[in-house]
């Protein structure tokens, strides 16, 4: 075990909403050719058949309205663009086509190809540059939020590919339940009660002891009371709070992306400002799914998780056996034990990656279980999904022999 892992006491995951890797981090390829971002030549056909290239014109708010469709059948269109050849091969050519279906407006549909320049996202850019950015972290399902988030909590969505999710009394316990049973501590911090959680029906309803607010997270960081494992949910809605107007910070279109940047910065600062916590914590910032926004990397096949979604749920006329991942999303691992400028599975000059390490949201419970409950499978055989059992874990990235000095911090004002 590395020195970093010997010192590790806390894993914190912040899961944001609905942005693709290329949309948020694709421009970083210009500064670091190891990052599998955008060359500027990537394109999709629009409704007139004209090829439309990606453009660095993403704005913080107002462009992606209506919310781009990211239901299973829409994502299927985005990935395959109607290609039903057997075997089906992803081509990532249907993003404009899919967005066009919503407003029938050719010019507007092209905005799905927009991406941010690094100067617009100072927080995400700085973190990706300073710590470890993943070239191959994918949503667990080519579908929407709830079922993807379920993979982070349970290592499976129990056969669901939609926003419906009711999975009480299944054999696969949540990572929080496993931690508790093993004598560890775990918490889901939602932003406030008005924003609450996306993990409602099972955990909040039956096990509210796992939940705390973001204010409590901040306080726990200061007072060295952070649980072994923490999962943070951003603010999902614009609403009035005790201190005035609270902007949604989840970055879900059409919520303001800058507010999400500020939220990420406050999470980072809260950990960094406590030196003991900083040196004993690994923070993962990751997005649940791509939200219908363009990415150029083909989602790979994966270990089926033993469930089958029926055609009535997929909306494609075909069943889905959970044998393929969703679209790639941004993911950054933050720790002073991570070498500066780490690119996980770096791109070679010829544009390929040697034996890419594929991560997805089942990597989260897999990593937490592997680190805190190394003997879990021996004591609890067959109580993790096949997907989670096969998922890559990421703590080996804390590879330095000593924590390095990190000067990076963020000024988010008052």
């Amino acid at each position: 075990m590395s020195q970093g892992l010997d010192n590790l006491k806390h894993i914190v995951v912040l899961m944001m909403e609905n942005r693709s890797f290329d949309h948020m981090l694709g421009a970083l390829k210009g500064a670091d050719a190891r990052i599998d971002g955008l060359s500027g030549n990537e394109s999709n056909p629009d409704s007139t058949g004209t090829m439309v290239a990606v453009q660095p014109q993403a704005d913080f708010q107002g462009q992606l309205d209506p919310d781009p469709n990211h239901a299973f059948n829409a994502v299927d269109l985005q990935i395959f663009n109607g290609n039903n050849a057997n075997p089906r091969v992803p081509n990532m050519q249907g993003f404009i086509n899919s967005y066009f279906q919503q407003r029938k407006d050719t010019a507007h549909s092209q905005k799905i190809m927009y991406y941010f320049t690094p100067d617009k996202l100072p927080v995400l850019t700085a973190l990706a540059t300073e710590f470890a950015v993943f070239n191959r972290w994918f949503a667990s399902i080519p579908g929407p939020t709830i079922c993807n988030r379920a993979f982070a909590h349970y290592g499976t969505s129990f056969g669901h590919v939609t926003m419906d999710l009711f999975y009480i009394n299944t054999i696969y316990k949540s990572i929080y339940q496993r931690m508790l049973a093993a004598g560890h501590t775990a918490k889901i911090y939602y932003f406030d009660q008005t924003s609450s959680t996306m993990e409602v029906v099972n955990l909040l309803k039956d096990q509210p002891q796992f939940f705390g607010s973001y204010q409590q997270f901040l306080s726990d960081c200061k007072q060295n009371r952070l649980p072994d494992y923490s999962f943070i949910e951003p603010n999902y809605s614009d609403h009035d709070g005790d201190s005035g107007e609270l902007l949604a910070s989840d970055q879900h279109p059409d919520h303001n992306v800058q507010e999400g940047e500020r939220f990420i910065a406050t999470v980072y600062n809260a950990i960094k400002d406590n030196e003991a916590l900083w040196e004993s914590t690994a923070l993962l910032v990751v997005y649940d799914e791509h939200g219908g926004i363009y990415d150029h990397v083909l989602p790979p096949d994966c270990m089926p998780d033993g469930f089958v979604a029926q055609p009535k749920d997929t909306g494609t006329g075909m069943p889905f056996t959970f044998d393929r991942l969703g679209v790639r999303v941004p993911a950054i691992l933050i720790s002073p034990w991570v070498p500066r400028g780490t690119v996980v599975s770096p791109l070679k000059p010829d544009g390929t990656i040697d034996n890419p390490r594929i991560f997805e949201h089942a990597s989260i419970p897999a990593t937490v279980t592997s680190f805190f409950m190394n003997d879990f499978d021996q004591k609890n055989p067959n109580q993790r999904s096949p997907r989670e059992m096969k998922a890559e874990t990421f703590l080996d990235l804390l590879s330095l022999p000593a924590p390095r000095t990190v000067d990076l911090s963020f000024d988010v004002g008052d």
Partner: protein
Amino acid sequence: MAKIVVPKPAKNSFNKDRPASDLLKAQVKHLHEMEKNLPHRLKTGRNVDEIKTEGEASAYIKAITNRLHPKDKIKVPRPAAGSFHKHRPLSDLLKRQVEHFREAERSLPPNEQTGMDINEIRLEHEAATYIGKVTAALHARGAAKETKSAEQASRLPKRTAKSKDRK
């Protein structure tokens, strides 16, 4: 006009082991005073009386200056005024979150339910209000459950003792 060639210093001019001048020592002393006001976590723990050379002085000066003015502190801009829009129509995500909360709300006793009709929820702030109410009720119920189970746990040894007595 003749071009004047400015000579370079001799190659051996660089000497970071040169004894620190009074000026540098004074600078170190001033920065050490500043260091005393820093939070404990930012203190260097360096004994400045041991600083003898220019190299040692410059390393210390850099460390304290960096703590006073972190060069990589990035100012994170605020969203533009007017970004707040609580009257935004519900996204599919929020709509489904509301539906899930309605399912959870059904498990509450009737007197703890909100009585709100979720079909009338159209806007983001309406969803937020509903979700907030149900979350508070679920937490209250959870707290009650925890209190109850704690009470049960505290009674447990007595029962065990009784059952042992019976044996």
